């Protein structure tokens, strides 16, 4: 997956994530779950067109662990 300039990235704050699984439920094509229920991000980069649906998942995370990071420092 190449990161195009301007793309944002899904980040997880692992110190907050409790594996509730809402991100997987809302973005099943993008986020899976491991055997303990914690998210596995299949597709971290988010194009401008995809931002809205990812933002909904970010807002739904009960642990405030899911983030959409638009700064390309990687």
């Amino acid at each position, binding site marked *: 997956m190449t990161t195009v300039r301007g793309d944002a990235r899904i980040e*997880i*704050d*692992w*110190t*907050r*994530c*409790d*594996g509730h699984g809402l991100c997987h439920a809302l973005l099943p094509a993008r986020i899976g779950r*491991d*055997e*303990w*229920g*914690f998210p*596995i991000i299949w597709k971290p980069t988010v194009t401008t067109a995809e931002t809205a649906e990812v933002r909904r998942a970010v807002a739904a995370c009960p642990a405030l*662990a899911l983030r959409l990071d638009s700064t390309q420092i990687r």
Partner: protein
Amino acid sequence: MTALAHRPGPPPALDTTAWAVGAPRLLAGLERVQRLDLAGHRAVHGPIRGTDRDLLLSHLDVAGVAGRGGAGFPLAAKIRALAGGPAHIVVNGTESEPASRKDRVLLLRTPHLVLDGALAVAASVRARDVTVAVHSEDIAATVRAAIAERSDAHRVSVRVIVGGFVSGEARAVVRALRGGPALPTGRRTPPTADGVLLANAETLAQVAVLLRLGPYRFAETGTRDEPGTTLISVGGAVGRPGVIEIPFGTPLGIVLAAVGSAEPQAIVVGGYHGGWHAPNPQLRLSRAGLATAGGTLGAGVVLVVGRDTCAIGELARVADWLAAESAGQCGPCVFGLPALARDVAALVAGRRRAVASTLGHARAVDGRGACAHPDGAARFVTSAVHLLRDEANRHLKARSCGRPVLGHLPLGTR
């Protein structure tokens, strides 16, 4: 498998044996004395030239000085990344890797070299203060004694940070210094974004050497891409364990001969976030040499696994330790590292599919934490499973390789 406690009671006194292969730089003058006081330090190393930011950066760029705490991040890049506003220098002397001793050997035996480097960097970026972070009171006392000897160290203080393996991680140290827990932060923001320049103790001692020699004499030893010397902590099944200063690129065989190691079964390089390697005497001890061999030099730990111990049992002890050292913050690490340790125990017991399960759980934890602990644990276990395939088969066929677990890989020497 021999049952050994994770953290045996009082820590044993630190063995500060140290010597150089080739001409000593960091360890200069320590052939004759246990500790260089300020007068002794000045007699051995001479005066240090003052520096401004531009000169320091050009020296660091030419000499390619990379961090010696494990990550190998260029010091010049950290200085350039410092945010405007007041800067603070942190000397990371916490040295949380169980088999690593080199930073404490420097702080105990030649503390003024570390302070010279820290003060030079502080002056060049006009830092407000310098904090030396260490893990124990005895190290703190020796650094305080060194500070008291100097007239230029009034802005230097010492702080003891209590904690396990991951508490020595850069952001965990900074968090502890601010009064928080000594735990990695959830956001991967580098300390420099907040005006904190944190560098490993050896890195700053190298700066002190660099400023005295200049970048060209500094590069008279080592390799073209990695000039100079580096400290390695050598232990395990060796006759003379110790901290050794070597030119970058020194072949493993020379180091093994220097410590009196006869025919290792395997070696571990880079500590318990590093990797297992066949004891190839041609292996070059440099970041590039280890990268070529699929490993990492890390903070310079080199451990010898002898032929008389059960290598998979040694791996199992370390896998248990790595699981116990999780800070308990991140789910994949909390659940994944114990699963990985159970996989390795299954390898020892010779269960079928243990190899596949081990490799699967190693992949499952890699990159999924606030710090690099799960990544490092995965790297360590994966490299061992690949190297020890024949050993695993012996356990599979006979439930044992017939050798005891001798504890060649030390745990909890803090």
